[in-house]
């Protein structure tokens, strides 16, 4: 039997896993810090919630790397799918608010949750009907979800980046870079399932860069909000 790991083709636990975990959990902390200053960038509760859930679920997905159990691996993909859904929705809602002046209320808020609930059902169905292919099937679904999500995010981040100014341009620019990398990463994953050989290490480098750009984006947003928050909460002593 060929030892796939010697060709860098097999999933492995290495530096990229640790790096990826550290980056996504730091990103989540940055989202929480930014959320605390949400009054300054009042885009409503829904986009903030979805942004939080996207980073949180991706963090959990990355934790799943630490186990080699196929069952854990398949559950990990559900969190990846959820992350894709919520990240896409967060950016899409911000796009609707800033580019179209829409208010996010009503049924539209529940659509991503409803969509997210479908995937555990699919997982349960596959678990009962075809447990042997559970991991690869969930992996393929995750690939497709991320590809669709990334394409939408590339568009929304582009629209947002071209309509905002200052540091917001950088925030959306890095988000767009992140989406491009997610698209490449998942596209390579998808073609691999179709029989093309793609080095696992290349995919992991792309995934790590995806996390890196996401963290840069969140860092810029958090820095911007914290800076203004400090300015606004300072007191003014009129000595004249």
């Amino acid at each position, binding site marked *: 039997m060929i030892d796939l790991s010697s060709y860098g083709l097999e999933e492995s636990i290495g530096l990229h896993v640790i790096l990826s975990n550290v980056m996504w959990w730091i990103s989540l902390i940055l989202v929480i810090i930014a959320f605390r200053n949400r009054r300054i960038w*009042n*885009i409503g509760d829904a986009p903030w919630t979805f942004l939080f859930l996207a980073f949180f679920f991706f963090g959990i997905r990355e934790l799943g790397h630490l186990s080699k159990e196929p069952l854990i691996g398949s559950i990990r993909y559900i969190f990846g799918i959820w992350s894709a859904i919520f990240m896409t929705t967060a950016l899409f809602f911000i796009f609707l608010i800033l580019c179209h002046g829409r208010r996010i209320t009503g049924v539209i808020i529940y659509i991503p949750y409803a969509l997210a609930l479908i995937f555990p059902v699919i997982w349960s169905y596959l678990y009962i009907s075809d447990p042997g292919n559970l991991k690869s099937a969930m992996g393929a679904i995750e690939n497709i979800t991320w590809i669709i999500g990334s394409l939408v995010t590339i568009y929304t981040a582009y629209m947002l980046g071209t309509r905002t*100014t200052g540091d*917001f341009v950088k925030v959306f620019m890095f988000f767009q870079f992140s989406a491009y990398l997610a698209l490449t990463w998942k596209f390579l994953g998808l073609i691999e399932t179709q029989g093309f050989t793609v080095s696992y290490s290349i995919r992991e480098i792309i995934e790590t860069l995806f996390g890196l750009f996401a963290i840069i984006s969140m860092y810029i947003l958090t820095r911007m909000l914290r800076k203004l928050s400090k300015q*606004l909460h300072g007191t003014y002593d009129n000595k004249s």
Partner: protein
Amino acid sequence: MTTKAELYLLTLQELEKSAGNIMSSAIVTRDGLIMSSTSSNNIHKETFAAYGAAAFKSASKTMEELSEENINMLIFESENYRVVTLQAGEVLLIALTGKDIQMGMMLLEMKNTAQKVKGFLA
């Protein structure tokens, strides 16, 4: 002793009282973040601030290219509305007004407000 956020809001309220037909006004950063704004049911504040700051940035670039000078003020109007943006130090003072407002009076009040805001920032 008051916080700067409270001062900004008071300044905007004073501006709206003295200038008349102002539908919405805001103090925003160059990034398009709201420092303070008066309430308006018809306009989404974040959109107002983001577009206001972006428009000023574009106009600023145009002015620099054409005259090699910095922009101080930006005014644009539609059939019924007018948007006036004034630089107040590091931030922008933006007002959406009706077309029937007395422009001279309005500009004077806005300049005074911009001076006050500049003072608070220092």
